[in-house]
């Protein structure tokens, strides 16, 4: 299309404009994100597990019972039968 040097100049301009735009968008959207989360998901104070929310079907005590039973059945092998074992073994 054009000689390399002027093409390099276009690349320089487009490149730096793009990088600045992207990082500006990252900064802006990051700030928006923080504000939205602050408003709609404010801190959940005491929380040891890093998981957002537990599957609500199981009450903790029942879960403990199940886990105990499973461990008994499998003679304490820990992981039980499938990927999903990880979910509730933490």
């Amino acid at each position: 299309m054009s000689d390399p040097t002027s093409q390099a100049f276009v690349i320089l301009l487009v490149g730096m404009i793009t990088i600045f735009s992207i990082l500006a968008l990252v900064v802006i959207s990051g700030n928006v994100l923080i504000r939205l989360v602050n408003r709609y998901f404010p801190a959940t104070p005491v929380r040891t597990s890093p998981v957002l929310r537990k599957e609500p079907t199981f009450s903790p005590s029942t879960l403990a019972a199940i886990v105990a039973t499973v461990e008994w059945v499998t003679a304490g092998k820990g992981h039980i039968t499938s990927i999903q074992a990880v979910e509730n073994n933490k």
Partner: protein
Amino acid sequence: MDLIQNIYEMTALGELIDAPGTVLMLAISFGLLYLGIAKQYEPLLLVPIAFGMLLANFPGGNMSVLTEEQIQGLGMLDLAKEHGIMNLLYYALIKTGLLPPLIFMGVGALTDFGPMLRNLRLAFFGAAAQIGIFTVLFGALAVGFDLKEAASLGIIGGADGPTAIYTTIQLAPHLLGPIAIAAYSYMALVPVIIPLIVRFTMTKQELLINMKEQDKLFPNKTPIRNLRVVKILFPIVVGTIVALLVPSSVPLLGMLLFGNLIKEAGSITERLHKAASGSIMNASTIFLGLCVGATMTSVTFLNQQTLLIILGGFLAFAISIAGGIGAVKLYNLLSKKKINPLIGATGLSAVPMASRVANEVALKHDPSNHLLQYAMASNISGVIGSAVAAGVLISFLG
């Protein structure tokens, strides 16, 4: 002006405006990420699938999987050069049918056949609960799918992710995305679906059947005196039977049983077990998820077929569960020793979630009725059942 034109052409904005469906695809991938992360629906698969979908739906990124017609004739190197790394990964690892068997090897390396061996008889109900796979065939044919597509839809009723993906790759690869999503979503929804079907099919009296008491009333099981040796021999024997009778299920079941063998052989094959259940399985899961996600662009996903698959998949699940329950009821008619029909419901597989749910349901009606270990027996056998079903389908239609 030229500069802005340059920038605009580089972005995916033009393509977005031309294909508004893409925005919907982004929304769907956000929805799947929400289900996977916040709701914890099978996150190990749904998170990569959703992110793969997100990346695939920006055309300039070269991250969406193309059809075989579009890439025809290209070797691996040219494929990567022209269509990017997702197509390379998809055609090298997924389309070749490699990853599902590798993941099955890992599943085997994490599976304990102990509960099944302790209640072998219950394994039988893992057969009945595959009926959804085959009954949905007819409905799918009726609404316009061809036989191969119908079979891929039906296998969702096997409630086993790698099996569904493997079958679909062989029979109807263009439906891989929606079928994988339906399969994993319904597996994640088992805590909702099983209680629903149970409510319509089981009586209060049946829910109260206590397996342990029945065992005390009618003690007839052979005790296992040397579980370790039995566990080592079991995958070898089962492998031989299956390979003899349904060879087309060998890539799946053979690898599952191999994984189980190197687990049960103990410390002497610990290195292999670690690789099978760890690095190989985890890496395979990442690549499988990303690639399956990358097959779903607005063109391939936003159509009536996808909706029908979502609907049909649910039917397949429901019929399978009902089939398992029905089989137990039939058995109870003929036998003095009663079985809780929940044991049939878990026969569809979705290990171990289905067993947990069945246990939960039973405990709700009788807090002393722990039937988890019984449920695991039919639950695990359901994995074998659907892999055999896949073998039959591939053998007839592949």
